[in-house]
């Protein structure tokens, strides 16, 4: 066996040759390392920022829910007990999600669906397919209907002030129920928001309804809320039908808001997504437009037309560009083989080769048009002579800089993209209080209107033309978290943090997948009708 520590000439031979041996490292490795380090840093920043933002949103939601839930709700167990204890035999209690139950005070228990139970000797409650029938007084609840109707308010154009419910006085202002001009109508819908806005029905919140005493004639009460609590007073003489369920509400609204927008490069073939992601700089964008909403008790469906601006900031692209201040007649040629463009200037008496991005006054399509070549020699085409004040070329490609006046004041390159957006969004109401809270998600079709690129100089902005690589149609996914509250009789205000992510790549180039995403907040109003 080999003795450790013993000198071995073979080892020495290899060690002398290889220990300090150097070989040229691959050119692109540094770019990859740099971009990954930058990305790690940005991920940390985003994670911290996102966590803080999410925590604030959650705290606000909990705070709002707790505040309005505790201050305006009768749903606590103690309040419920207080009310039902006064109602004696005739009480009906319903619960969420169309699970209708009947309260049987004699047995102090609830009935489930598809059950029949007698409350007392002469009054039956039939529970059948979410329908409750209160036989003797013809009190019927049907979850599939959209109406609560109480045929029990007297007169037309009259109102009744309710000062107590079975002897329990509502807190705050007394509630008033008014009858409309037509028999069978009430001018006041029995929704929580409207009731609160009118200063009445103080203790009757959304999803709760009380039928009050001494209401005599047939008048409907309309609600778009499902009923949690239905109290029936012994003194009601002629009530004969109660229908609960959902009512569809339509609304037309407008929303607008700033967005924090960035582009994510993913799964590029032969390119380096990490690198491209690291040089993409987020921008503040904005979106605004009109929408139509259809809302039931818990669900809301929304569509509309929006105008959206989403920019792309390409610092790295700008670094590779140079502005040549020419102020002179230039002649433009193209070498078809190379794909580069030749520009000659009489004053500099010097031709240079560069990937030309922009020549003042020459359309980009002309510069890119291979049809403007001919077979007359290597630099085959003549584009024409023109007085220009600037030429923008890729700096790395300039082969001769003699007498060329180079302006190095490029700050950045920005691509300004304008879209029309057509969203289809479904929302579900998770908190049904004075301020409703919705979770919403959907898809959005994006139609590109224009995509223009600009170079920001120190004291100037130069348009470098229309981007040809952005798809006309793309699709985004949307996730939102909306807060909505009434600010007038038929006007609601909405504030909605929203995240959107482009599902389809917006770049036509199959070698690179570009997915813009944006986070921002809509705010706006909607008119109910």
């Amino acid at each position, binding site marked *: 066996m080999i003795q450790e520590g013993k000198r071995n*000439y073979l*080892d020495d031979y*290899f060690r002398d040759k*290889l220990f*300090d041996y150097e070989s040229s490292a*691959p050119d692109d*490795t*540094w770019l990859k390392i*740099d971009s990954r380090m930058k990305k790690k840093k940005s991920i940390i920043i985003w994670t911290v920022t996102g966590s803080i933002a999410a925590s604030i949103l959650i705290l606000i939601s909990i705070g709002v829910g707790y505040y309005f839930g505790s201050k305006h709700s009768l749903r606590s167990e103690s309040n419920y007990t207080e009310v039902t204890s006064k109602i004696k035999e005739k009480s009906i209690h319903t619960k969420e999600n169309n699970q209708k139950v009947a309260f049987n005070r004699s047995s102090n228990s609830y009935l489930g669906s598809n059950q029949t139970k007698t409350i007392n000797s002469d009054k039956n409650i039939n529970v059948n397919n979410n329908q409750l029938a209160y036989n003797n007084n013809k009190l019927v609840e049907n979850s599939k209907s959209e109406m609560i109707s109480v045929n029990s308010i007297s007169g037309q154009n009259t109102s009744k002030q309710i000062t107590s419910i079975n002897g329990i006085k509502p807190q705050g202002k007394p509630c008033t129920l008014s009858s409309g001009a037509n028999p069978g109508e009430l001018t006041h819908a029995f929704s929580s928001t409207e009731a609160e806005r009118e200063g009445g029905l103080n203790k009757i919140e959304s999803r709760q309804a009380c039928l009050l005493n001494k209401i005599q004639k047939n008048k409907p009460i309309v609600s778009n809320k499902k009923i949690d609590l239905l109290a029936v007073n012994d003194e009601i003489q002629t009530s004969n039908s109660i229908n609960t369920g959902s009512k569809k509400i339509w609304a037309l609204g407008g929303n607008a808001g700033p967005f924090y927008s960035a582009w994510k490069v993913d799964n590029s073939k032969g390119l380096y997504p990490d690198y491209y992601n690291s040089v993409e700089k987020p921008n503040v964008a904005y979106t605004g437009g009109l929408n139509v909403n259809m809302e039931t008790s818990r669900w809301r469906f929304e569509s509309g037309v929006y105008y959206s601006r989403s920019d792309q900031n390409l610092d790295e692209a700008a670094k590779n560009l140079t502005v040549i201040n020419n102020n002179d007649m230039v002649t433009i040629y193209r070498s078809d083989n190379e794909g580069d463009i030749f520009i000659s200037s009489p004053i500099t008496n010097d031709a240079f080769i560069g990937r030309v991005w922009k020549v003042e006054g020459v359309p980009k399509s002309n510069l890119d048009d291979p049809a403007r070549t001919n077979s007359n020699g290597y630099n085959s085409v003549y584009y024409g002579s023109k007085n220009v004040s600037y030429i923008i070329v890729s700096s790395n490609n300039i082969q001769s800089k003699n007498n060329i006046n180079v302006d190095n004041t490029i700050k950045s390159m920005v691509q300004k993209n304008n879209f029309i957006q057509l969203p289809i969004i479904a929302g579900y109401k998770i908190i049904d209080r004075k301020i409703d809270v919705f979770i919403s998600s959907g898809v959005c079709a994006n139609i590109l209107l224009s995509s223009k690129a600009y170079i920001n100089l120190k004291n100037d902005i130069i348009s470098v033309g229309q981007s040809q690589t952005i798809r006309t149609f793309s699709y985004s996914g949307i996730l939102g978290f909306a807060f909505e509250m009434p600010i007038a009789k038929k006007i609601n205000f909405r504030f909605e943090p929203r995240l959107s992510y482009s599902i389809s790549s917006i770049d036509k180039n199959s070698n690179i997948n570009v997915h813009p995403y944006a986070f921002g907040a809509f705010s706006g109003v909607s008119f109910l009708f």
Partner: protein
Amino acid sequence: MTDSLENIIKGCIGSKSASREMLYRMYSNKMWAVCLRYTRDKDEAKDILQEGFIKVFEKIKQYEGRGHFEGWLRRIMINTALAEYRKKRYLNIETAYSANKDEESFEHIESDIAAEELLEIINELPSQYKLVFNLHAIEGYSHKEISELLGIEEGTSKSNLSRARDILKRKVTAIHKTAIKLGQQ
């Protein structure tokens, strides 16, 4: 440590991209050669070089100026390469081999073989021989250190080294003889 290297390291600790690039430019060629010795092909070497430098930049605060910086850097590259071996389960350590008794005869061969060619010869070795030979013969790790690094017995390390030496010696000798023949013609 030179002042400039010290400043570059301070810049790296401060997450300055320019300092990182300077450090990379200073050592990338030498570390690339190290990576080539510990990997199976250039693509894998590229990955190790990239991962190794990222680790260096992330852990550079731990360097604290003690010891030779290049040695620290080199250890990180080697450890990164070994981790890749472990991850991909390339290692298949041979546990028993009797050393060739005439190994000392190599001292009589005089040959000037290019480093690139020696690198190729090393890379033709089975993975387990290559690692042990690189670690012991070129980096100077003891068999105890190698056994801890690779999770093998010291005896296994010695056995693999011996086998690697035999193969390398035959190849070097063959190259040397070919060169002599070509010289005579």
